[in-house]
């Protein structure tokens, strides 16, 4: 069977999720590899969520929030960015390639950009092949 990468995406409710909905209402087609999880703000994202996704076998994780300055909750996206930078150092040490974990800003009007982003990430992951960290991440306490 050919490789179909799976992406888990965390989208903030106000900008990114609305943007993804806009891609839908505008019928902009993109790769079907993404699974979207709605959260109220990108500031809500905990490193655990991302690691959990990798552990469950995700080949990539995408985090999308409002553009800087546009956060519905004022600065949740900045907090997300800070944590994200930190986490990225950590995940690289764990053997997760940089391109498997992305943070992007998508506004409520950027349906097209969202579709392009998904396509782009799918392409990258296709060229990278399946994630190898799944087995190495069987960390006990992450299981619910």
């Amino acid at each position, binding site marked *: 069977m050919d490789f179909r990468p799976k992406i888990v995406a965390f989208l903030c409710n106000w900008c990114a999720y609305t943007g993804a909905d806009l891609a839908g209402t*505008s019928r902009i087609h993109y790769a079907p590899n993404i699974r979207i999880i709605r959260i109220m703000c990108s500031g809500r994202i905990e490193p655990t969520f991302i690691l959990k996704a990798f552990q469950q076998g995700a080949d990539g994780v995408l985090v999308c929030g409002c553009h800087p300055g546009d956060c519905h909750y004022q600065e949740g996206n900045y907090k997300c960015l800070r944590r994200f930078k930190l986490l990225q150092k950590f995940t690289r040490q764990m053997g997760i390639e940089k391109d498997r974990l992305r943070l992007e800003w998508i506004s409520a009007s950027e349906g097209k950009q969202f579709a392009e982003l998904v396509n782009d990430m799918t392409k990258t992951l296709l060229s990278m092949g399946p994630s190898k960290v799944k087995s190495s991440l069987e960390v006990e306490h992450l299981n619910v």
Partner: protein
Amino acid sequence: MRSPSKTCIFFYNPQFSDFDPIDYAELIRYAMTFPNVSRIWKYHDFIWNEQNLTDKIEANGIDHLIVAGLLPGTVKTLFSKAMAIAGKDPANVILASFNDYYTGTTFDMDRLKSVLACLIAGLSYETVAIPDENPVNPATLVIGGGIAGIQASLEIAYSNNHVYLVEKTGTIGGKMATFDKTFPTLDCAACILTPKMVEVNQNPFINLMTYCEVQEVSGEAGNYSVRILMRARKVNVKTCIGCGTCTEKCPAQAPSEFDYGTSMRKAIYMPFPQAVPNKYMIDAESCIYLKTGKCRACVKVCPVPDCINLDEQDHEVTINVGNIIVATGFKPFDAKKMDQFGYGRLPNVLTSLEFERLLNASGPTGGNIHLRSQDKKGNWIFTEEAEKPEKVAIIHCVGSRDKNHNKYCSRVCCMYSLKFSHLILEKLPGAEIHEYFIDMRSFGKGYEEFYERILEEDVSIVRGKTAKVEERNGKLFLRGEDILKGEILENTVDMVILSIGLEAAEETRDLSRMLGIPRSEDGFFEEVHYNLDPTATSRGGIYLAGTCQGPKDIPDSVAQGSAAAARAIQSILKGKIYKDLISIPLETIEKRINKLTLVQLEEKHL
């Protein structure tokens, strides 16, 4: 504002238009009675040019002048200039624009005199002409269940006040419910509208009256008595479970109103699947039982006892309300009037509304674009069996911006036409699309961006309106002019979509009489003040919302729906409502002016 001591009046009555029914002689007689009016001139008394005016201003020592008439703004700059040259303050050129106080077919002379009297006293008419107040009945009547009516009803219901929403057809939703996607965001009309429709049905403060019509309105602001005809639906709305068994068995067919006649429905039917109320109804015109006395198939299969009563008769009810919001919407332009496009003769020349249904997933073809074809009985309808078009032309401004039909611009056609192009490309990839326009009016928020987006798509958008559509070898042949290229444009296509304009709805005329609110020249209801009160009428407690006031798009209709509700809620909160603006007699105005000029206006009118 101080009271000017010495005022001159210039009557701007050039009489180059037929439309000037004002009795200027009478107004002049009236104006002469004011001691501070020193001189009055008419348009034909001397040649109105800079030199003459400056001379007049200097010779008569004019500090204040009033230019009165229809569109006096046309000459205002000339007066400002003359004043400036004469060394006076141009701000003292006051306009008495009678066209702002137009009340239907004739001018109410008393009102014009009132306007003049106020301006002569250095006051504004709006400040003085504040009607008396009545106590208000907290219930509100909303006429028309389109998006504007829905919005107004919900707005009032949110304030915990009672609303009667009267709708002529069997479902609320209006024209918007028939649309596929809405520009420029392309979200589907039903997706955003149906939650609101459901909310109307669920809100305990809204009494939804579908298939009803207003027959008579009496009373005055704050307490109107309204007689409403409740048409026999012949299906009990309370007990119908909307199962649809009756429709399956019904043998009679008629063109579907909801699909603008492009598909057939049964005699017992639901206007569309998401109709509110989601109940069936019987069309007496096509029902076999009602015509021949035989059939009753629906009654036999209905699982609910006594739900269908074929002998139900129309009846009337009378309700009392304090405010009335008119949101009767528009009717589409009849494209048959423009024979050069062949609508009605050539089956694949469609109106934009028909095409909306064709695009709509809940429409006759499930959202696939097919050519129109004939069914076994000879009706021209849309079915999925017919072929798909490869070339489509869209012609803008059909019936709009045309002195032979409607002079005004219908405001939405450019945008919905662009939307069509986009949706056709989406549904028929590779289709050839031509749009023919005069001026592209993409003025709203996000509209220009949408236009730019369509320009980048594979659509030919041509400046130059195609004028002729003919049938040639079973195809549609178009002839027009590509204005930017300077070429004759001849094209053969499979389908032509006419972007028809918006016209005042049929009931506008009757309602105008019933409610005593004027209509403007174009047939739409006239607002009391173009700029300051676009949703109010000259009658107290009666407001306008949506396209019955003039063509507009969804956001503007929604804003007006809410705006009309604002006044109703305001009056209910206050417990008092202003009477008709036109009901203020001249003597009252004069008395108030006297009082106000003595005691510097202030608090009185607040």
